[in-house]
């Protein structure tokens, strides 16, 4: 795999430097709503072990993006407990929050590239933020961009790129600093399957080097082609049901996964990597590890 030849500049030497191998992300009965609006996430519990690889699946509106916002500390849970790298998300001060975020690589669904900066400068940005600049770093950035197929677009401005190209720039930007945690929101939404596979190789390679990966996607082809554990979100049912009713009558549209779906996925996962499901509204049974 060409990825092996990509030598990263030292950033604390290794990607893995978790304090006492703390759980990377842990959610305990986390609910989220914006203001007085409807709940976007409800009683969600799961955890990500260091070096694990998870998909987050679910229909649009199921709260995938909100979940990622929560993990990037852009959003506080309305209730429940959320820890990242072993620390309570609510307890972090401004500086610690920035520090934590520098350990996370994010691929935004809408890319969020800086329009006035070249592809090269966009990808360099995380390196600048951790204070690594210079010709050596630039060399690595060029190498990575060549690998994601943007070798000829290094000096281009984002406005001149196609959606798929922008997506690859966003991904290169997220992985260049070899983050401890990689979050990607529909990272293959704008590319064909061949490039999508290439990007998944990239994520898997990064994962092998110690990065914990969480990818929000609804590309079933990929989740089967590259099987990993799946956290499935269903849209939260808006009428607040008694907990017992929700347990007894799970249905599509409730905030709990349907048994059918669960079984389906469970079987699919058993074929390859032992996928597990984490359902909302079922805190007791859903926590991994």
């Amino acid at each position, binding site marked *: 795999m060409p990825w092996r030849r990509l030598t990263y500049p030292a950033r604390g030497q290794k990607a893995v430097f978790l304090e006492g191998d703390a759980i990377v992300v842990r959610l305990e009965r986390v609910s989220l709503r914006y203001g007085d609006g409807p709940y976007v996430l409800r009683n969600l519990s799961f955890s990500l072990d260091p070096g694990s690889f998870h998909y987050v699946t679910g229909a649009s509106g199921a709260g995938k993006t909100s979940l990622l916002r929560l993990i990037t500390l852009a959003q506080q849970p309305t209730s429940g407990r959320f820890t990242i790298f072993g620390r309570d998300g609510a307890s972090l001060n401004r500086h610690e929050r920035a520090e934590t975020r520098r350990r996370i690589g994010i691929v935004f669904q809408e890319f969020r590239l*800086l329009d006035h900066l070249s592809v090269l400068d966009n990808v360099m940005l995380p390196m600048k933020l951790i204070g690594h600049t210079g010709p050596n770093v630039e060399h690595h950035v060029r190498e990575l961009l060549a690998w994601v197929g943007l070798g000829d677009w290094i000096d281009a401005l984002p406005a001149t790129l196609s959606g798929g190209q922008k997506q690859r720039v966003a991904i290169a930007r997220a992985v260049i600093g070899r983050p401890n945690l990689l979050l990607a929101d529909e990272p293959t939404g704008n590319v064909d399957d061949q490039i999508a596979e290439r990007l998944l190789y990239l994520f898997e390679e990064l994962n092998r080097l110690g990065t914990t990966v969480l990818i929000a996607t609804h590309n079933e082809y990929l989740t089967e082609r590259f099987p990993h554990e799946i956290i499935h979100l269903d849209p939260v049912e808006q009428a607040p049901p008694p907990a017992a009713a929700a347990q007894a009558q799970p249905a599509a549209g409730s905030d709990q996964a349907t048994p059918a779906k669960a079984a389906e996925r469970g079987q699919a996962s058993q074929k390859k990597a032992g996928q597990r499901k984490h359902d909302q509204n079922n805190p007791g049974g859903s926590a991994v590890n």
Partner: protein
Amino acid sequence: MLFSRPDIPLDQDSSARFLPWLIAFMVFLASLALASLLVVDALVQRWDQGLRAELTVQVPPPASFEDQARFDQERAANLEAVVAVLARTPTIEEAQVLSQEAIGGLVEPWLGPDSDALGVFIPSLIAVRVDQTAALDMGALQQALDGAVPGTQIDAHQRWLGALIRLARSVEIGAIIVLGLVALAAIATIVFVTRASLSIHRPVIELLHLMGAEDRYIAKQFQAHALRFSLRGGLIGFIAAAALLGFFGYAGAQDPEGLLPRIELAILDWVILAVVLVFTALIAMLTARLTVTRTLGQLR
């Protein structure tokens, strides 16, 4: 880092176009105010210094005039006594008795060639040079002189200039107020513009925050931008002020009567004016930095 390519496209703001000119105008005003302060101060110093070094002591003529010989004798004795007192005073370097002829020459336009003949007896004058480094106790000297010849007066020329110096000082205070107001206006402008920039570039700043940028990383870009535009604008203002001052200096030199006060700046004064430029840039930079860190600090 200070001049590396910024992540936040501040150069594309409309304020990036007008702000340098605003700063140029402010530096221009501040430079002129400071130049007038320096010129007036130098003028006052010159008056002050020249006059502080000299005193004139007036010895009254003898009270009665009966015959010329006795009068002259008495006058000479009085003068001698006064000169003796002056010679004893340690801070006095030199006491020069003006000859009666010289004094007569001074009053000749009014009194004619022989004032004594008119029965007007003019006092004797002694020009005294004082050591400026030591303080002269005027009270003690006056007392000593009174002891020698009652009615002897010390004429410190400074007194005559008091009003003029007070006027000059008020010009200086005015200049300082202008400097202060210009600085305040510059600071207020930069605070306002920086806040506007912060809200214009909010999406980029949010993204940088999400990627783990510290507030001071963002502030650094604003402060580098402020430094750049204020140096650029300041230089324009400085050059304009220098050109105007140069013209004043030239016009002053062309005036043969010497009626206009000479506007001349020493090398040191030019350095001080250049400091205005540097100082403005530093204030702009610091203001931008503080505004950004304070505004961002208020965000969640």
